[in-house]
């Protein structure tokens, strides 16, 4: 059944339009490359400014002295370093166990109602503004008892939790099922299987999760405004306000004194360096892990 008579050329192609298509293709593809380059510009710029301005104000004394008024030279940020260390350390102590245990449940039972709800909840929790988290902790911990380091840690722990859960869950998923089944087949109870077989196999994952979680909260300021409040004194008390590097950065940046502004840049240098090391380190560990093989 031949229909070749109706098979005339209907499609009108013009040489000009064809050239336009090819040229348009090159232009648009080039544009996307340009945009990517454009995105790197602010990154490079910020890092450059932080390193240049921060290092010119940096000194050993800056890191080891505590607060002094500008009339006495400005002092250092040792109190803030200690404060940040305590806040993050406590927060990690709270977030990591809860995060790992939650990840155990979610990776074993991903499709139960609770599992789905938790996975969804983790995503949503990670999108909450940190200021809202700070307000929440204020209402449950500060409004009766006053500002405290513990409250600050709790706020940071809530922010760290989704990161720990997500990274640990991803890593647990990568552990081959056969490992778990072998352990169970040998008669080990579930909890032993989880702690002695699955967790060690996912150690690097937990470590990278911790690193990324710390990087996430190292620079957090807003939630601390309502919980730890900040302080000029060196303190390790958990039930009193405590200093923290980002809080001091905030205060010094807005301070009219140039000495304080310069110190703010030095603090920025410290925080950014920490964040960069943690992020790049976590990436490198993950890379090293995948090139070595799945387990351990």
């Amino acid at each position, binding site marked *: 059944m031949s*229909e070749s008579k109706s098979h005339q050329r209907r499609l009108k192609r013009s040489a*000009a*339009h*064809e050239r336009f298509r*090819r040229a348009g293709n090159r232009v648009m593809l080039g544009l996307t490359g340009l945009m990517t380059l454009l995105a790197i510009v602010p990154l490079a710029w910020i890092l450059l400014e932080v390193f240049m301005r921060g290092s010119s104000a940096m000194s050993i004394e800056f890191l080891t002295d505590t607060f002094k008024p500008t009339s006495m030279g400005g002092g250092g940020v040792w109190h803030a370093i200690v404060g940040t260390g305590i806040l993050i350390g406590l927060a990690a102590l709270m977030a990591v166990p809860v995060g790992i245990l939650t990840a155990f449940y979610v990776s074993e039972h991903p499709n139960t109602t609770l599992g789905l709800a938790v996975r969804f909840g983790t995503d949503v929790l990670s999108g909450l503004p940190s200021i809202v988290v700070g307000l929440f902790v204020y209402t449950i911990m500060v409004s009766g008892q006053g500002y405290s380091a513990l409250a600050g840690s709790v706020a940071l722990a809530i922010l760290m939790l989704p990161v720990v859960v997500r990274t640990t869950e991803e890593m647990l998923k990568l552990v081959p099922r056969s490992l778990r089944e072998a352990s169970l087949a040998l008669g080990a109870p579930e909890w032993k299987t989880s702690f002695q077989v699955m967790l060690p196999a996912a150690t690097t994952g937990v470590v990278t999760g911790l690193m990324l979680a710390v990087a996430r909260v190292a620079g957090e300021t807003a939630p601390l405004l309502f919980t730890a409040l900040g302080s000029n004194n060196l303190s390790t008390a958990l039930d009193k306000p405590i200093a923290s590097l980002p809080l001091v950065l905030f205060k010094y940046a807005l301070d009219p004194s140039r000495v304080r502004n310069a110190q703010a840049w030095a603090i920025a240098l410290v925080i950014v360096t920490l964040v960069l090391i943690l992020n790049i380190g976590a990436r490198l560990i993950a890379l090293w892990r995948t090139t070595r093989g799945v387990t351990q």
Partner: protein
Amino acid sequence: MAESVMALPSRIPLPAAAARPASVANAATEAQASAKMMLDHVSVLYNVFTAVANVSLPVYANKITAIIGPSGCGKSTLLRSLNRMNDLIPGARLKGIVSLDEGDIYAPNVDVVDIRRRVGMVFQRPNPFPKSIYDNVAYGPRLHGNIKKSELDEMVEHSLRRAALWDEVKDKLTQSGMALSGGQQQRLCIARAIAVEPEVILMDEPCSALDPVATLKIEELMKELQNDYTIVIVTHNMQQAARVSDYTAMMMMRPDRAGEMIEFDVTTKIFTRPKDKRTEDYVTGRFG
């Protein structure tokens, strides 16, 4: 609206290819048809792995050429070299010459986009765009410039008629192409391919995801289409190859996992008096 719509020649001249190899002389003497496409000692390599080794075969105009063979023998890879779809795979290289109307399609300054318009493809699983039926078919023509709505309507109807789908969808052109049944989706993909007025249509196991009724419809369609197009079909269904094709190429996997063509002939000969024992074993179902 003085738009200079210069009617382009149906093909943009390609660099000249080498002369036809003697290996296909036997089939050439049988047919009086001319070769629309020619593969001359073609090998396809992915990095260091050879997927297809040294295949030479003609694709005669307005005929249906089937490529058959057991799984993994490189049939699809060979097919995809005809419209340079293997270019999409990083590390893929081609040796030898693939020519379309005597022009080497892999020559350096060749416009790949135009080759792919001239050599269309229908895939194993129907893959309509998540657009309406109308927009699926109109996609190709729209690429080539502003076409008046009335002309576009006509082109869409024409393509759908040729793909034997018009009657079933003419009242629901605005519905999503993905809402059709499997067989209808595949005919939609055929209509879509026809709309850009290709010269060759490649079909990669087009019926393997379809039921027997839909398969039969598509086979009928192929025989109608061959009046205006050259068709190359890869199929693992021997009966289909026997029913539908004019020429058949039999491929097999060598011990080194490369695919080679072991026989090429008129279909009736391949299935009744094959020259190679392996071909005979395969078509009689002794293995495969």
